[in-house]
């Protein structure tokens, strides 16, 4: 079973549907109040949070996709990378789903200039096309060059 399916956290960045592999996710924080913004940090950095004594940087995903409209992020997905924990601010967390590996297709299009190497494929979920993001690689990305 585990070989045939992969679990994903499905979330929305404004109207863009994305997902992280559950194995990359450390935890989900359903609020963004405690994010402390850091003066002079790059624009896509929301700030930092205190994750049980560790200072974790939070990146606003909507900045990646150049979604400048005022859409407040509601939640933070804390992911594990090989080096550290990294948080991503997202508009809304929708579901945790199991998708058969066969159902994951390579992405036909690249949303808003995001390079293919950050995308692990796409799958259908409730008639929406969900883009799987590679969190490890995303962490190295400074900002989307549109």
């Amino acid at each position: 079973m585990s070989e045939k399916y992969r679990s994903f956290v499905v979330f929305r960045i404004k109207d863009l549907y994305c997902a992280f592999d559950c194995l990359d996710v450390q935890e989900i924080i359903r609020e963004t109040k405690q994010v402390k913004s850091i003066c002079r940090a790059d624009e896509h950095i929301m700030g930092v949070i205190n994750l049980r004594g560790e200072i974790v940087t939070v990146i606003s995903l909507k900045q990646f996709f150049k979604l400048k409209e005022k859409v407040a992020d509601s939640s933070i997905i804390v992911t594990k990378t090989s080096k550290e924990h990294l948080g991503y601010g997202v508009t809304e967390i929708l579901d945790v789903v199991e998708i058969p590996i066969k159902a994951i297709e390579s992405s036909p299009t690249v949303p808003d200039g995001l390079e293919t190497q950050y995308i692990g494929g796409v799958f259908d979920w409730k008639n929406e096309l969900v883009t799987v993001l590679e969190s490890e690689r995303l962490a190295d990305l400074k900002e989307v060059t549109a």
Partner: protein
Amino acid sequence: MDEDDEILDLFLEESLEDLEGIETDLLEIEKNGADIDVEQVNKVFRAMHTIKGGSSFFGLTKVKDLTHVAESILDRVRKFQLVPTPEIVQSLLEAIDHLVNMINNPSDMDSYDISASLQKIEAVESGEAGPVAGADEEVLITNSKGELIFSVKQSDLKDSENEFKGGPNLYLLTYDLLNDIERKDKTPQEVIKELVQLCYIVESKVDYELVPDLENFEEMSLPFYILVSTVLESDMIFDFFDLEHGSISILNGDGSVVSEVRDDGTSGSNGNDISLDELGDLDAALAAASTELGSKSKEVKDPVAELLGEVTKDAQFVKSPGSQPLPKVVDKSTAKQEKKSSFKAKKPTASENVRVNVALLESLMSLAGELVLARNQLLQASEEERIADMKSASQQVNMVTSQLQEAIMKTRMQPIGSVFNKFNRIVRDLCNDLGKDVKVIIEGESVEMDKTIVESIGDPLTHIIRNSMDHGFETPEQRQSVGKDPKGTLVIRAYHEAGKVVIEILDDGRGVNIEKVSEKAFEAGIVTEHTLEKMSEKEIANLIFMPGFSTADEVTEISGRGVGMDVVLTNLKRLGGTVDLNSREGAGTQLKISLPLTLAIMPSLLVSVCDETFAVPQVNLLQIVRVPLNEIHSKVQHTGSNLVIRFMNELIQLVRAEDFLKEDVEPIDFSHKSFGFKNHLYVLVVAAGELKYGIVVDQTLDSPEIVVKPFGRHLKHLSIYAGATILGSGDIAPIFDLLGIATELNITQLDNVEQEEDEEKDIHAGELQKLLIVQNGNNERLAVPLNNIVRIERISSEDIGSVGSMTTYDYLGKSIALFRVDDVADITKIRNEGKCSVVVFETMGRHLGLLVNEVIDSVELVVDFDETTHKQTGILGSAFIDDHLVLLVDLFGIVAACKPEWVNKTGVHVQAHEQKHKILVIDDSSFFVNQISSFLDEAGYSSVQCMDGKEALTLLRSDPSVSLVLSDIEMPVMDGWQFIEELRADPVLKDLPVLALTSVAGESSREKGLALGFNEYLIKLDREEILQNLKHYLYDNATV
């Protein structure tokens, strides 16, 4: 397997620890030379022995071999058979380098090449054997195939002759455990029993490397080599030892093989084939050996036959002094290469452990217990909502946590000695390389610092010491030509000062060449000619810390490779340290590094800027200045586009926190009187290294101890932060990196400041004074010398009590007498209502309080006191400080006027009938000269005055009636240091008591003073102490 690894790790770690101390011991042994300290040699010997034992247990053959040879040398040293010459110690040190490297890289141990070092030690050992013991070479014994079997000492061979069953004949027997013993149905025990009946066994071993694998069982043998000494002649021996032909070799007294005993009982040369190549190799060896052989071969009748025998046996010539030079030269170069690579070798896993004192561990355990207890109380109380209990429990938690923190920090504290000790070796090696002669004095090895700091200061310090060795010290000849001791002295010392650890590196070399430095700095474009002109010598000397600076005319191996002192400075700054360089050309250099005790937890100040909280490390914080709105225009000025503020007679640049925090800040409104500031200012005066500047913040908050946490990689590049911390509330506060901020904003020392400063210096040729400025009444300002003050208490007038006519105040549970300046002096009366302050000071052996209305400031500045206009009882003089007239309070005078009986009780005054002593007072400030003279007069002494050391020496030489000297330190023409040195060198004056008087108190200058020959080191204006010391030296000592 894992368990084995653990034991191995433990062994490696212990070995490293053992080795650590050895270097110093070896150097000490070298220094002592023929005067051998047996206990010290024993110590090194024991360490080697322990490592040898362990390594053979773990099968670390290379370690074992090295330690074995080292051990045997040491053994002979401690038996006084060998004098530890520099060569011997050098070879041992190299062996230790190899050992450390091997132990540090256990996985690469097999590939490690120690043969050069082994050879060298062996060579040294045999070569240098002469002085004490006479020849005692290591004799190498080979079998018929030329393979090395044993290495036996000549003396052992000789001794064996006199052993039980021993004799003049030596044989090497080769039993084959498989063929000779097993197949002949004997047991090894039987064989050995037989042997012991016949001869004395010098040495034996089984060549287990040849243990056959199963396939080749038939062809293989398992040789058992036995070296025996016996009376049996060679023709009889075959009958006794049940051995095949070729299994017995007859040996000379010096271990060389004469021949093999054939089974027919005849002896003859063994006709092994020798290739031409081999012969070629042997040529050189023979040439060297032949000169020796004549004398060596006592027992051999025909030297030529002996020589031939040697050739056939692959020239196993005895290592002797004659054969030395060639291999030695080769060794040195390879050893050098290895040494270099060993410097690069990084520390491995072994140092990941910390040794903790058991007592400390116990205290940690008990604290943990207390913490659990407190937690339980807290949980219970909060469950039952008992507020009072919760409060007490949380207090308990607070206390235990602090203690726990302290105890845990202690476990990280390591003595700095582990870093210092290696400098002995480095200096010694550099002395050899550079042809210099320098003695190292190390002090304060036991000073403890955080592990991380101890580990990271090694490299910067090494760099400094290499620099000092290369540039600082002259060669012995140069030193002699300028009249210095040809042996230079390098002092490395650590001590605590003001909550920091100070590391001082002092050399008595040539000092920093100011001319050369300014020239090079100018060439490198570090400074302009204009600024150079205005720089003091000290500032110029400090240019060596600038990036891109190197005075070395040529790049040597030791220094000048472009990795300059700036790297040292950056590294030390990273550790929160500061560097201060003092140099006197021709006399030496002093480098003073002060470092925090620990990095992990640091005291900080929280400030708020734009409603956000930031932490500022207190190490960088000099002062917080509040500038009221209406004073902004007078206190803050601008130069060009920068704001400046005056801080302690220095103009420093002022920046707004917004300038570096926000991207779009409103520019400073220079047209506005208050520069656009709408509120009073909080200015943090901070120091980043040598650079000082001010930061305007909105508000200052708490000052907690914080734990520094690093930022993630997306924020690391922000140089204005040193990381962040988590506050008690769980909130995050970024920590300012003040060096980073300075770089970000391009803050530099202000150029135009220096000029003003210089002018100021000219005006006040006086002395730096620490004063507390207080206010009496409404606007009369008084200054109290800070040196006398113990504490300042803020009280309300109700706290003041009275006993009889005396007012008192409860200070730390004791009632102390209160005085007012207006009790004795004609000044404004103190206001009697509301809040006031008590300045607690100490004089005449008691704590006393001075009542004042308000404490204004503490200043450290150069002032000229006018000692005439306002002089009266209780007032020493007056001066203008910050545009206010300030009266200098005479604490002693006030007390003396109010309570004359106390003064007499202390017995510092001279009885009338006693002889009047003449005291010389030296001080360049006429104010102090007059002050001191006047109270000396009061106390019943007569005094003469001088303005500087030179004048004083002239006076002393012409006037022998002076019985004691009080001397200032900082003086023109000849300062106190030079004065005392010259005085102590004068045959007539050298025993005169001289007390130093200074306004700058510091443990290091005090030590220096006492070392140079001052009898005491006293604080100016502390009359009581001065008088007591006068009494001590003039009267108490007179009877001695």
